[in-house]
Each structure stands twice: as structure tokens, then as C-alpha cells.
């Protein structure tokens, strides 16, 4: 059976080149980067190179990179670390309604600790209105966090515009660029941000690798207490292999970005066209054009996402869903609900994340296999039966 992995939004595979550069640091080069002998030097030098590679990918300076264990940690460090460092100036934070939980819940945690939180809405495409953000800035606002691209619906936010709008207020601006970094051009100066989160396993690097870029001179309260690693901003002995792999993945992403984007956006468009023309009552979620090149997400009406996911899996196809049944908490995706999609329609969420290993044949295979799965589930669905009755007159 053909195997088609289309869950690159959950994680990309790791590129062989990244694995190869990591291997020596799992065994031969085992020194602690903080040690002053030659063992330590070797490990430290490897981290320094990775720091340069990651900084280059986002047009930042190497010393502004703080390596973390994941994108979620980077987001937590940004939200909690920046807010706490700014707490003397004010206690108001602004985030969007479609942020990842590592931003949204971090902000909620601060709210419980006495900070005030404003959650700005999004439109039906998942876009945040820059004016809406600017309008909500108060005298005591200390931090704004708006994601660069949304992993569930693929929409790319007008981060640069928001950056321009709020620049004069002096309020710190963080963006969660985990879904976008390494997949589209990300330039911290162009975006006008003060902090930016990224994760290695979103662009063919290792899991357990992430980074927060923080503009030089900005104070950041660490999440944990400990040693002086990462400029005192993130203690703990460095995960050297993961950092080395992240660096290599960043270098490759920068080198191959134009060709990857061209290939993936072509496959994505083919998938979107294929699904929308072969399945009726299917809607594309997120923005039709302002979206990640490797991202296609839908709601298929009258049926539920997990059931589709499992039937696709039985055909060798891997996807995700934001349906309530798919989540451990049995709650519909907060992103789809924030976009004004009803709970009923959100249940039919299906999410495809394309990757560099995919080809035209994979897309043809999905377009062949999905429609009969949809029909099979619709034949069982009381909602579809009701719809058909109502529309037959």
C-alpha cells in the first residue's frame, strides 16, 4: 500500500543531512559546552555555528538567539519572560484569539497572576486586523503577541503591518513564527518584532529543538532558575545534538526555500482544487491565498474529522483534524470557532501539511481515496440524511 505522510504540520520528518551532523554530538563529542577544556570547546563551537545558522534564517544576530527545548517553550519564555520583565511598566497583554495554546494558555496563566489580558478577534479567514490591535493598546500595555502563521488553518497574519502600527507605542511585540519559520521568508527586522519563536521540527530539524529570538538589550525573566547557559536566559546543559540539528535544518531551509515553496505551493493548489472539485459541501478553511505554501485545511460538512482521519489512515494516508472528537479534551478547535465556524461544521475539520518528500502521485492518491471515504461516512450521517431530505423538497 502506498504511504503518504501529509501531517507535516504536526511534525516534519528530519532531513538526513541534519541527522548526519547530529550523530557525532550524540557520542564522540560529548563535552559540556560550559566546560573550559577542549571537550567543552568542541561542543561550544558547534553551538556557536548553530546559533549563526538559526540567526541567519531569520535575519537576526546570533547573540539574540536563545535555544529552547521546543516551540512551546520558546512561546512560554517570550510571554512569561517578557511580561514579567516589563511588569513594572504595566500589566496589560494583548494576544489574538487564534494563538497556539503555548501562547494563549501562557497568557491565561499570567492573567491568574494579576496581569490583564485582551484577546483580539479574527475574521472568517483567521486574520487579525492591525487596527484592532492598535485600538486595544492602553497606557499600561506591555506586550502584544500575534502569531505569524496559523498551523491549523495556514493563514499568514499581517505581522509587519501590526509591527508598523504599534511601533510608536513602544509596546513589546512578540510573534509565534513556529509554523512559518523555515517554510516562508521570516525577517525579524521586516516584521518589526521584538521577539520571535521558532521550532526545528517544523522545518525538517529534530524534535526537541526550538529557539526564541529576542532583540538585543531586552530583559527576559527565565522560566527556570539555574546556570548561565544561553546568556542566563535559559538554564540547563545545552542539548547539543538537537541544537546542531536545528542549525543545519535552518541552513538548509534558507538555501532551499525558493524551490521548496514553489514545489509545495503547486502541490497544495493541486490538492485544494482536487478536493473542492470532487467533494461537495467542502470548504477551505483559512485564507485562500495568504496562506502557508505547504498547508491545506478544510471542513467537510455532515461528517466528523477523526472518522475521516482513521479511514484515510487505513489507506496509508496521514492527516490531522481539529474536530472535538480528535482532541483529548473533546473540544472543537478554538481556531475554527474564533473564525466563526459552527461547532457542527468544525467537527468535519481535516488538515493536510505537505512536505518536501511529497509528489504529484501522493496528491492524486489522496484525491482518489478521500471522496469514497466522505461518501461512506455521509451515508451513515443523520445530518446528511436530514440535509438530503430538506433539499429534495
Amino acid at each position: 500500500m502506498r504511504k503518504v505522510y501529509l501531517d507535516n504540520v504536526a511534525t516534519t520528518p528530519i532531513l538526513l543531512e541534519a541527522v548526519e551532523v547530529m550523530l557525532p554530538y550524540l557520542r564522540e563529542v560529548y563535552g559540556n559546552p560550559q566546560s573550559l577544556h577542549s571537550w567543552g570547546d568542541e561542543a561550544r563551537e558547534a553551538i556557536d555555528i548553530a546559533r549563526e545558522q538559526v540567526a541567519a534564517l531569520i535575519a537576526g544576530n546570533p547573540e539574540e538567539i536563545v535555544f529552547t527545548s521546543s516551540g512551546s517553550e520558546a512561546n512560554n519564555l517570550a510571554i512569561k519572560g517578557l511580561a514579567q520583565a516589563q511588569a513594572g511598566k504595566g500589566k496589560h497583554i494583548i494576544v489574538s484569539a487564534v494563538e497556539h495554546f503555548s501562547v494563549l494558555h501562557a497568557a491565561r496563566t499570567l492573567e491568574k497572576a494579576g496581569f490583564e489580558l485582551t484577546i483580539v478577534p479574527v475574521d472568517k479567514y483567521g486574520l487579525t486586523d492591525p487596527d484592532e490591535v492598535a485600538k486595544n493598546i492602553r497606557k499600561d500595555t506591555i506586550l502584544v503577541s500575534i502569531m505569524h502563521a496559523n498551523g491549523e488553518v495556514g493563514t499568514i497574519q499581517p505581522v509587519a503591518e501590526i509591527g508598523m502600527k504599534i511601533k510608536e507605542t513602544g509596546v513589546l511585540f512578540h510573534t509565534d513564527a513556529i509554523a512559518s519559520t523555515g517554510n516562508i521568508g521570516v525577517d525579524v527586522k521586516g516584521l518589526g518584532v521584538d521577539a520571535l519563536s521558532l521550532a526545528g521540527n517544523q522545518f525538517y530539524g529534530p524534535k526537541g529543538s526550538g529557539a526564541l529570538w529576542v532583540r538585543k538589550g531586552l530583559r527576559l525573566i527565565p522560566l527556570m532558575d539555574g546556570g548561565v547557559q544561553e546568556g542566563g536566559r535559559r538554564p540547563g546543559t545545552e542539548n547539543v545534538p538537537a541544537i546542531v540539528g536545528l542549525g543545519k535544518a535552518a541552513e538548509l531551509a534558507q538555501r532551499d526555500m525558493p524551490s521548496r515553496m514553489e514545489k509545495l505551493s503547486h502541490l497544495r493548489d493541486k490538492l485544494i482544487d482536487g478536493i473542492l472539485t470532487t467533494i461537495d459541501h467542502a470548504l477551505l478553511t483559512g485564507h485562500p491565498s495568504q496562506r502557508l505554501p505547504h498547508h491545506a485545511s478544510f471542513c467537510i460538512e455532515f461528517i466528523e474529522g477523526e472518522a475521516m482521519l482513521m479511514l484515510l489512515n487505513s489507506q496509508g494516508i496521514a492527516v490531522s483534524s481539529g474536530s472535538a472528537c480528535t482532541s483529548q479534551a473533546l473540544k472543537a478547535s478554538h481556531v475554527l470557532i474564533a473564525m466563526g465556524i459552527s461547532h457542527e461544521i468544525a467537527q468535519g475539520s481535516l488538515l493536510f501539511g505537505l512536505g518536501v518528500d511529497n509528489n504529484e502521485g501522493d496528491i492524486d492518491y489522496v484525491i482518489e481515496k478521500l471522496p469514497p471515504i466522505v461518501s461512506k461516512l455521509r451515508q451513515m450521517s443523520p445530518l446528511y440524511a436530514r440535509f438530503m431530505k430538506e433539499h429534495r423538497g
Partner: protein
Amino acid sequence: MPVYSEKVMEYFMNPRNVGEIKDADGIGEVGNPVCGDMMTFYIKVKGNRLEDVKFQTFGCGAAIAVSSMVSEMAIGKTLEEALTITPSMVAQELEGLPKNKFHCSNLGAQALRKAIRDYANKKGIKIKGLEEKGEEDEEGEES
């Protein structure tokens, strides 16, 4: 993704008794799209036995497997016997359900019960086992 037993997968992939009974003697509908799952059960009664049971389900793999299993367990039973089918019996027959999917087995048993209640109301008869539980058990809103 929850780990389903082989039996759940089998009943999900090849569901039994899917569909609608046009001249059903009783219909029971539970759940709503907001909570995630919706099940409609149709029953055909002959004598005092469930001659046929069919279902339509909007929901996840577990919900479909549960509906399928409940319908199979119910067919051929007397109405009284069918009312003794409990969610845990359904889960057991399916060789277990993930903890967060257990509510699906409640829905299945509730939908069948509701269809039997509908039949009893239409016929104006009392069935042993039907009065013992109140209506609030049958809505499946907790999910």
C-alpha cells in the same frame, strides 16, 4: 489519536445495520452536533421482539463502532431484554474504549432506549425497565 481495540476498528470499518428504517416503529435521537456526536436509532418491533434495528451516526470512530455494536446486540432481543443493555456492556463487547470515548457508549445505549420509549409512547404501553430511569439519562449532553 486514541488507541482503539481491534474490535472497535472492525465495527468502525465495517459497520453493521447502517441506515434508516422507513416505517420504523420507534425512533430515538440523542446527542447534538455541538457535543460532537449524534445518533439516531430506528427500531422495528414484531411481537415483543426487536426484529430490526438500524442507525445513523454523526461522530468519531468510537461513536460509529458503538452504534454498530448496540444495533447488533439489540436485534432479536425482547424489548425488556434490550433495555438491559448498559454502556459498560457495550464497551465490554467492543473490548474496551479509550477513557475519553466512554461517553460514546452512553449515547448508543441511550439512543436505543429512546427509540423503545418512542415505540411505547406510540402504542400507549408500559415496558418493564423503561420507567426506572428518567428522561435526563437520555440526552447525552454531558459529552
